């Protein structure tokens, strides 16, 4: 791995830390997910995931408090080796956990990747309908991501990889002003075996930065099983 890349990885891992202690509108959260991917045929695959989100730091204090539980399904149709479209459905349970509204979310997605030597660039466009109890939010999002193995040009079993991403989001709903969000994510992952990947990462979010910015730092852990 070149020095530039190494630096990028190190910087990305600590990107959030500066701002951690200086903001009052700041929250720290954790998100843990478990996902299963299955190929149905050479161009159709499905994904199921369970994800839980919990507060680690809020109101200037550290505490642990569960926030929500998501059940997610995605169906992906590969148009060819680097273009795909997906449809997703997600149910979020929040009412019985922290009292906020449950949510049904429908997603349509287009994804394009380009590989240059060992680095893969990904462009993803998503449209979401977030159906809450008394409100529906339409959200459009665009994500630019890049990933590369930390050793060599090919990801072999036992090797680690890096994924970095930036995403911009625009939310529209009938009774509220449009909201703009920005997220920066960095992940380190291990291809543990042919079927299992483990990922650890952080995500820094600027939420509603056109209205009243809230900043959130997420600690992400996930296990991805491919069967």
């Amino acid at each position, binding site marked *: *791995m070149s020095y530039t890349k190494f630096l990028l990885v190190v910087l990305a891992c600590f990107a959030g830390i500066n701002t951690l202690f200086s903001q009052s509108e700041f929250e720290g959260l954790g998100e843990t997910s478990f*996902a299963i*991917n299955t190929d149905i*045929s*050479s*161009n159709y695959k499905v*994904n199921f*995931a369970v994800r839980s989100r919990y507060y680690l730091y809020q109101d200037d204090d550290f505490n642990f408090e569960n926030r929500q539980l998501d059940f997610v399904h*995605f169906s*992906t149709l*590969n148009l*060819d*080796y680097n273009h795909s479209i*997906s449809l*997703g459905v997600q149910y979020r349970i929040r009412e019985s956990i922290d009292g906020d509204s449950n949510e049904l979310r429908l997603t349509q*997605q287009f*994804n394009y*990747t380009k590989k240059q030597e060992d680095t*893969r660039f*990904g462009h*993803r466009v998503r449209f979401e309908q977030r159906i809450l109890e008394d409100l529906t939010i339409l959200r459009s999002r665009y994500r630019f*991501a890049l*990933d590369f193995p930390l*050793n*060599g*040009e*090919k*990801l*072999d*079993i*036992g090797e680690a*990889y890096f*994924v970095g*991403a930036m995403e911009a989001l625009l939310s529209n709903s009938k009774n509220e002003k449009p909201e703009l969000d920005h997220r920066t994510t960095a992940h380190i*992952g*291990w*291809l*543990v*075996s042919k079927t*299992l*990947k*483990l*990922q650890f990462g952080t995500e820094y979010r600027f939420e509603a930065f056109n209205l009243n910015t809230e900043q959130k730092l997420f600690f992400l852990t996930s*296990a*991805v099983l*491919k069967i």
Partner: protein
Amino acid sequence: MKLKAFIFLLCFCQFVFCQTKNEKEERIPLAEFPEAAKAVIKNLPDDCKRLKFYKETDGEKQSFEVKFKYKRKRYSLEFSIDGNIEDIEVLTKLKNIDETVKTKIENYFASSFTKHKFIKVQEQYIYNVKLDAKTFVDNVLNNNSLKAPNFEIIAEVKTDKKRDIREFIFNTFGEFVNFRILNPTSYEHVLY
């Protein structure tokens, strides 16, 4: 809490067990190359840029590869385990291939598959034992190789229902020689 710690530990146990693998490509320092290969690399022109060294293991077979850029072209020079040159590959584009050869290759794809998409095209110069290593490499780099290259083409092809990524070899005249199916390298680290 105990359960979490247990799961965490379990994950790492697995990590340790999975170290035994038979296919691997890794970056290594030049020092770990075979002596004969080191000598060839030392003789490369000074303005070869971005040299990267790789070792590939596939079952029992090992090989070494150096990748570099020279005069705006990307080369990959492959050595056997004892440091003998196997071939040099030069990254190119389909449109740069001689017109008659190109047409032949395109016709092959059009008639053999319902759909195809080119991913990577390389000229392949197989080592000619009559030449010494330095002359062979210099000839290829300076584009005056006596022997015209083969073409190594990676493409995604679709037969009746199945779709896979294959590596094809065509000879100098654009005639099909053989193919092998490539493992779709684990490209799925980003979810969805």
